[in-house]
């Protein structure tokens, strides 16, 4: 479809899914529009005042028609819904991630962090054919991470971690945009996604110079902020060990469970008393306002790394 002047590039698995659905609905829409305009035109000409035509057939049998087209529309709409919902689940349900990227948005730039510790601004280099999972948050207002060529976007909300994923199918450069109004330079809060072949991507990573991995940086911060004092292995304080927490289901004080995803870990650091793990006293102080989003991302990455078998790289 890209040969059409009004069709955007399609460079990801999700692009194909959305396009297929869109083309179908577009065809349906066109068909209905043509029939609506067509019927109006035909009736207007045929029953033009003054023309001698049979006008007696117009009134009768109203309810048969009404029930007919009401149920037909309902069924058609529900069918569209089911297709759309299935595609949506595909778009927003991440498969096991090959690469996990943290994205921190602020007025008016995108900061992206690779697992290896490489940082970029307004750019993101990814390899082709790998599923990339993004964890996004914002330092100030709501932004929206939008890659038109992949047909995906997700709002980036301060105080929350949002996630979505994509798998690029073509190499090249694609526009990255902010889609949620965020202030004066909203229009210029963009950049590019660079999709590279695996080898080129590996070269690019090393070209960025030596970096500590994000999890390593997080480990250092974990000590710096004093987290290890309680959550460390030899700590005297009764605090839960964080090994294997990420991805597990946590029993909460007062019944109930929570799945320990990035969002849960973040909340536990900033609002520790909102979800207390069963069997522990609510003694952890809040770190709200003391850790910046960038550092927080590194600490989360470190806690994530504690759930991986030793030696496995993210």
């Amino acid at each position, binding site marked *: 479809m890209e040969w059409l002047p009004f069709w955007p590039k399609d460079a990801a698995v999700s692009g194909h899914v959305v396009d297929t659905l869109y083309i179908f609905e577009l065809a349906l829409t066109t068909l209905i529009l043509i029939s609506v305009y067509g019927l109006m035109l035909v009736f207007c000409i045929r029953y033009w005042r003054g023309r001698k035509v049979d006008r007696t057939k117009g009134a009768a049998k109203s309810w048969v028609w009404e029930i007919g087209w009401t149920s037909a529309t309902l069924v058609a709409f529900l069918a569209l819904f089911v297709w759309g919902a299935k595609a949506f689940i595909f778009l927003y349900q991440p498969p096991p991630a090959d690469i996990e990227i943290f994205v921190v948005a602020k007025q008016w730039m995108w900061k992206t962090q690779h697992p290896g510790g490489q940082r970029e601004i307004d750019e993101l280099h990814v390899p082709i054919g790998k599923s990339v999972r993004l964890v996004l948050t914002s330092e100030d207002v709501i932004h929206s991470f939008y890659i038109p060529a992949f047909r995906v976007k997700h709002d980036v909300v301060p105080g929350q971690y949002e996630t979505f994923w994509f798998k690029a199918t073509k190499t090249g450069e694609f526009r990255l945009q902010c889609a949620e109004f965020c202030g004066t330079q909203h229009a210029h809060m963009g950049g590019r996604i660079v999709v590279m072949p695996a080898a080129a991507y590996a070269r690019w990573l090393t070209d960025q110079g030596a970096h500590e991995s994000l999890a390593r940086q997080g480990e250092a911060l974990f000590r710096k902020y004093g987290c290890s004092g309680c959550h460390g292995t030899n700590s005297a304080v009764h605090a839960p060990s964080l090994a294997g927490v990420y991805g597990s289901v946590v029993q909460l004080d*007062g019944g109930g469970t929570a799945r320990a995803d990035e969002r849960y870990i973040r909340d536990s650091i900033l*609002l*520790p*008393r*909102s979800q*207390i793990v069963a069997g522990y006293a*609510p003694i952890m102080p*809040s770190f*709200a306002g003391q850790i910046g989003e960038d550092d927080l991302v590194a600490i989360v990455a470190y806690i994530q790394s504690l759930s991986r078998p030793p030696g496995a790289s993210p």
Partner: protein
Amino acid sequence: MRSLKPQMQFATLAQQTETAQLGMWVFIATEVMFFGVLFFAYTVYRASYPEQFRLAGHDTQLLLGSINVAILLTSSLTMVLAINAAREQRDRMAAGLLLATAALGLAFIGIKGYEYLLDYQAQSVPRLDYVFKPGQGGPTELFWMFYFIATGVHAIHLSIGIVLVLIMAWRARRGAFSRAYHAPLEVVGLYWSFVDIVWVFLFAAIYPLGRGGT
């Protein structure tokens, strides 16, 4: 003034009275939505941070809140009795009951003001003077915001009610109402009782939290 003609757009005085009452009921439906927003926000935050809300609720003035419930419930009673008296053209009695209603309303406002003072002294007023007590975090401040906004908006409604009731007392004293014509009084009565209902829900949302039984 006792034999009034209906306004031009109505056929009878009874139609006019019923219409005025229906208007008030419709207005109350909009007020329910207005306060509903606050309760929705409250529900969302309380469900997210039950522990923090318990801690914050513990610092509210249960006794003063309770007295205020009793006051408003009683004022609703005097209000409805006043309407009945006015319908029977017992003007003095009606005016007296209305004055009692207004006095109860004023007492409520006074106690509320004293309660705000205590809250201030306990450093529970966000922005003005707020400190986190042991174990408290950000969401407790959300609780106190709900508390001040909800009770504040309620107090504004009640103040409007007091003015309306006083006007009604004055009119009742002058013998403006009769069995045939008492629509304004009925309408004010509906409003007053509605403000009472709001307080009943606010009490449940604010005061019983964090008292002994967890």
